[in-house]
């Protein structure tokens, strides 16, 4: 299954937030979205996931979702979005309960499987409050894996974590992709993340967000390292493109 955006635009109460976004996202591709604060990255992701309707243009899914996919477009949120009143297993279960076709036993099997794949096997009965940020995001990833999505929609999934945990989870994500070859739209502020994880990186301009540039990276994701000079050069280039806008966005007064 692929996604095809053409001429997508969105305004909130007269304020244009995104305009004329056209993108194709191929199957198995990770597309990173970067851009200054408030440029509409989250809004675009919500529209792709069907949580919001575009005012202009259309967002199409091309081709059938893979067989057995319970929720083709699945989000992973920055703040994890775990239900604090459910255990780790309960949170994963939430995504499965509404599917009548899955029996109790099947559900338990799926839960056990995704928890082990995200190294959470020992924490099935823990409350979210007992987990560190990194563990919480792992639960969210497990929950997403449970519904066998065609596309992951990730909105700054690592930005609430501290630097070291971020590094650890980044490696986990790369490992996961290498195994599962999922499709993903990955929103981030972190250019290092973008160059390590993206097949292509789309840079949005300040509000109203437009696509300024799309950069492709050829190095296979599994082969990328921290010190790869090519990646570092791309990162510098991206930073050069964005720095001025990021500085300006930072200096904006909020609430007038």
């Amino acid at each position: 299954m692929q996604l095809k955006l053409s001429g997508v635009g969105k305004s909130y109460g007269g304020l244009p937030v995104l305009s004329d976004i056209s993108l194709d996202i191929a199957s198995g591709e990770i597309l990173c979205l970067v851009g200054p604060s408030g440029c509409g990255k989250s809004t675009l992701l919500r529209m792709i996931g069907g949580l919001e309707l575009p005012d202009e243009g259309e967002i199409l899914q091309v081709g059938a979702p893979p067989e057995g996919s319970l929720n083709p477009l699945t989000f992973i949120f920055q703040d994890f979005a775990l239900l604090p009143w459910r255990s780790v297993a309960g949170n994963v279960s939430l995504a499965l309960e509404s599917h009548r076709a899955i029996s109790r036993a099947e559900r338990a099997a799926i839960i056990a499987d995704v928890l082990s794949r995200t190294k959470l096997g020992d924490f099935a009965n823990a409350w979210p409050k007992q987990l560190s940020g990194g563990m919480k995001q792992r639960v969210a990833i497990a929950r997403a894996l449970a519904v066998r999505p065609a596309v992951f929609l990730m909105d700054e999934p690592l930005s609430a974590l501290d630097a070291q945990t971020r590094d650890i989870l980044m490696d986990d994500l790369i490992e996961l992709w290498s195994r599962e070859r999922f499709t993903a739209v990955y929103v981030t502020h972190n250019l290092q993340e973008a160059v390590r994880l993206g097949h292509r990186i789309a840079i949005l301009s300040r509000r109203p967000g437009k696509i300024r540039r799309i950069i492709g990276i050829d190095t296979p994701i599994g082969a990328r390292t921290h010190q790869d000079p090519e990646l570092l050069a791309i990162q510098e280039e991206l930073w050069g493109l964005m720095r001025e806008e990021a500085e300006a966005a930072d200096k904006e007064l909020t609430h007038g």
Partner: protein
Amino acid sequence: MADDDAQTRPVPYRGGGFSARPMRSVGVLTFAALVAVWELGSRYGYISNLVLPAPSEVIEAFRDLWVSGTLWEHLGASLYRLVTGWSLGTIAGIAVGFAIGLFRPVRASAGPLVAAIFPIPKIALLPLFIIWFGIGEASKVGLILFGTFFPTVIATYGGVDNVDRTLVRMGQSFGLSRWEIARKILFPGALPAILSGMRITAAIAIILIVAAELIAAQRGIGAYIQMAGSLFATDQLIAGVLVLSALGLTVSALIGALELWLLRWRA
């Protein structure tokens, strides 16, 4: 390719809803409709006016109160008690609350005392207040003072306790004295809690004034309501209750305005 086209469709929309935005005009309309139905029901005899007077009768009763000037007498009497009792209780409460918040020995001794007396329903103490302070103004003012004091103490020291400790540590790291920290960090930090305590104590004060005036008062909105009740004059009764609600809303609006101004720094 044909197959592909058949499978190409917009991503399904599944968001929206669960919004808490109000629809103000509908509210006003509902209200107006309700009053109209009530009035018509009363006029055409579907609603016995023994049980519920027509809105027009309530308005008439209110007009009587207004025109005869007794409204101001009653309101004046109640307001005097409210303002005196509430101000004294609030000032004393803030002082004691701060002492508890700042000094551990005070907290250790006064804290549990306050915690023990706080949950006593003050209204039950009314007979005691009459015994202590007689049947004049003192017992009514005293009841309100007493009723506002404890919640204010608790709100104040709760507010002091909840001031972000990194701010205190920041103050210390710049070498501020204890007194400066109390004045420049803890007091403004506790202000939101104190103000929202005031909202609550204002409501409590209005409840207590009603209770106090139910028992022994000739003047006052509570006394007026009680009199109307014992004379089965539902129109006057409801007029009195509405005056009280208006009083409550006014006080709450005033505190709201004060909050808006004093706490304009809040996000």
